[in-house]
């Protein structure tokens, strides 16, 4: 009897505590932990993925990529292109409204596109071809090109950072080099500035006036139907605490739990692992082309011969269920993927590496490999590189530092022994590397390119040709040539694809498959 009484008291106490902790609106509030803290709220000003995710909550886009990466109209109702493929006309859907109640107009879209094009690599490329961007009436605007461009819709519907989000004209006219100060969009959620506390949480409520498209949601396209009253992006940097809080039911979704915690989460009955980003991510090894020894293409090629994808993937991800060896620079399974030439990245050939080093006259100067110790997914890439390059005949000086130091040091063009660098590793969301224009690592225009600053006029010619081409079959041929050229000059190495499932409570349904975690379509039942 005493035992029963004690148990009842304990149950009552736990019930009381649970009631204590939970609010009445809990079932309608989706609590999400992202992969990093959201600090900057201007998705045009930064390329940070957390800021892009914030953008998808409160802004809408003219076009969006669906689950199969086909670009579909979103804010746009009708669009047309002239016979000569120079004039593109877009008409907005009826009833689009900003969060402050003002109608969305073509002037807003023109201003938004101009600001985006001043910052984004794909926007900059598109703007090389744009002769004029003008409004026709309140709902229609036109893009007039100097010559045909093959990626107009793909640019406007670019899925990942920096996304051409539409903003009210007065906000979009902010200098692209300064952050916007207001968070008014026309998207499915409204940002609650008064309730959001940076470093603690960011609060979004359902936009009651949002008019979703009639089509079912697919990827980032289709009807963005919001099924919860409120989304809270909870800032929680410690991944162990994220897992504990998810198990305890204090949060609903963890966007990217680390791979070592997946077995623990998988073992929990009330936790579901969700493959929300089926394309995953791609690891990159980047050479610094402007300092010795990687200013010599033969030495870069020797490095590519020494490495192999499997070793990186085993060391970083571990479980083969979450990685894929892939010879294609443009992500296996997507339209421009090809294996041609990529086989050198799949199997180490140390003899060939040594032979190339000898031909190139490599003098044994240590290669400085920067290792990030604070971004767990990248921490083990540098030791693998060190081991493989040493077996391939290189001398390697691996220098460990936090990620913030690394991103700062990678901007330096000094020789490696004077504060510069030779090799860094990073990763990219696959959606950012699906074609030669969106893949920033392929830019070979020296200072205008990504860190490492490769210069290769031939590569730029190929990228331009791809951009101008409107026939998909010819685009595919050009994409293949781009891949071969990147390998021939050893511009950089793509060292494997990996996947990081999200984790959510079992009362969460409808998490869409997309390259970006989006929170429309998600239902939450119970508490």
């Amino acid at each position, binding site marked *: 009897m005493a035992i029963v009484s004690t148990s009842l008291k304990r149950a009552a*106490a*736990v019930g009381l*505590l*649970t009631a*204590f*902790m939970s609010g009445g609106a809990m079932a309608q509030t989706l609590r999400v932990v992202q992969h990093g*803290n959201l*600090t*900057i*709220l201007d998705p045009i*000003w*930064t*390329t*940070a*993925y957390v*800021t892009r995710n914030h953008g998808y909550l409160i802004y809408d886009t003219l076009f969006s990529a669906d689950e199969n990466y086909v670009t579909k109209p979103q804010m746009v109702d009708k669009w047309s292109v002239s016979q000569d493929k120079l004039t593109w006309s877009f008409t907005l859907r009826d009833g689009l409204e900003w969060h402050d109640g003002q109608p969305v107009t073509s002037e807003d879209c023109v201003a938004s596109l101009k600001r985006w094009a001043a*910052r984004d*690599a794909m926007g900059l490329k598109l703007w090389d071809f744009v002769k004029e961007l003008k409004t026709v009436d309140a709902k229609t605007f036109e893009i007039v090109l100097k010559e045909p461009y093959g990626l107009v819709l793909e640019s406007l519907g670019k899925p990942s*950072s*920096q996304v051409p989000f539409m903003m009210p004209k007065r906000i979009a006219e902010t200098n692209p*080099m*300064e*952050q916007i*100060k207001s968070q008014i969009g026309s998207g499915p959620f409204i940002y609650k500035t008064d309730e959001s*506390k*940076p*470093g*603690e949480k960011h609060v979004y409520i359902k936009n009651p006036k949002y008019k979703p498209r009639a089509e079912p949601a697919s990827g980032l396209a289709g009807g963005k139907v919001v099924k919860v009253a409120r989304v809270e992006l*909870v*800032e*929680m*940097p*410690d991944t*162990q*605490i994220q897992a*504990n*809080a998810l*198990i*305890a039911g*204090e949060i609903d979704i963890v966007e990217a739990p680390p791979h070592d915690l997946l077995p623990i989460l998988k073992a929990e009955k009330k936790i579901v692992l969700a493959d929300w980003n089926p394309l995953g991510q791609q690891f990159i090894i980047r050479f610094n082309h402007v300092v010795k020894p990687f200013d010599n293409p033969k030495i870069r090629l020797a490095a590519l011969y020494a490495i192999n994808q499997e070793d990186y993937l085993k060391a970083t991800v571990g479980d083969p269920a979450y990685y894929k060896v892939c010879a294609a620079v443009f992500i296996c399974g997507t339209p421009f993927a090809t294996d041609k030439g990529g086989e050198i990245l799949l199997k180490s050939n140390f003899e060939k590496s040594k032979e190339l080093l000898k031909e190139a006259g490599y003098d044994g100067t240590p290669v400085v490999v920067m290792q990030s110790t*604070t971004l767990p997914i990248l921490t083990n890439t540098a030791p693998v590189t060190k081991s493989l390059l040493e077996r391939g005949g290189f001398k390697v000086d691996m220098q460990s*530092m*936090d990620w*913030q*130091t690394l*991103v*700062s*040091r*990678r*901007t330096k063009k000094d020789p490696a022994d004077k504060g510069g660098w030779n090799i860094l590793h*990073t990763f*990219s969301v696959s959606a*950012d590397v699906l074609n030669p224009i969106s893949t*920033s690592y392929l830019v070979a225009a020296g*200072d*205008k*390119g*990504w*860190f490492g*600053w490769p210069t290769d006029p031939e590569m730029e010619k190929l990228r331009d040709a791809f951009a101008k081409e409107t026939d998909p079959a010819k685009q595919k041929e050009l994409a293949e040539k781009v891949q071969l050229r990147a390998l021939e000059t050893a511009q950089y190495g793509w060292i494997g694809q990996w996947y990081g499932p999200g984790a959510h409570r079992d009362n969460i349904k409808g998490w869409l498959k997309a390259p970006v975690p989006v929170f429309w379509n998600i239902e939450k039942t119970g508490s």
Partner: protein
Amino acid sequence: MLAFIARRLIATIPVLLFVAVFVFMLLRLTPGDPAAIIAGDNATADQVDAIRAKLGLDEPLLTQFMIWSGGVLSGDFGESFFFKKTVAELISQRIEPTLMLSLCTIILAVLIAVPVGVLAASRQGGWVDRIVMGFSVMGFSVPTFVIGYLLIYVFAILLGWLPVQGYRRISEGFGDFIIRLIMPSITLAVIYIALISRITRASVIETLGEDYIRTARAKGLPGRVVLLRHALRNAAVPIITVIGIGVALLIGGVVITESVYNIPGLGRLTVDAVLARDFPVIQIVIMMFSFTFVLINLVIDLAYSVLDPRIRY
């Protein structure tokens, strides 16, 4: 007394000036560029340069220091590079969790450690004393984050009695507020309980050997009165000193505890700011911590004169 307080407060000026220069230079000389972090991973070098210019980080160091110190002297603590909020606003948002955590920790530590220390002293050499000293050694030895993770595992995951993480302001309801502070306060208090109980024990044992204690006993006073009124009061100065040091050291402890329990206080703000190289925030927070440290020392000195009338300033 007032002259003493004034003198001590004036003495903080050179301390703060030194801290300001030291922290400013240290931040600029350590690797890490906020502009590169702000720009994001896919940004080009040109974009990073443009942001650096916008933040004024391309100016000479002396110019940067003059602009910043001029602002601080006129009450403008600057704006966070990342949050687009003033540093004062950020600190005001984060100060409550840290203050409340510190307050709960110190209250908990003092309420447990002083009686336990006195008890151990009164039973010197006995099993109570040995147990207290054993726990004290353990409290010193186990790192704060280990205690935190163990408590979370037992009380939040296994038993489900307490929440894993987070903080609620008092204004959001006292129940929600206090329930989230139980584990963090215990976690942080363990080391202070160990420290204060040890010092209390040693100090009381020393006092119990004094002549006036023997006199009090000879007068026929009950043991409890002798212990609490005569021994403890005279042993208070070292105990107050160690509590004061403990309060000052809490600044370091809250950084870890706030991270383990995901409490959005000044500790987390400091960690986030350091990782992001958010210079304006780091500079002001560290100056604030320094000022707090100086103030706590002043309060301890003043407390001496209250507890021991022989001490005069």
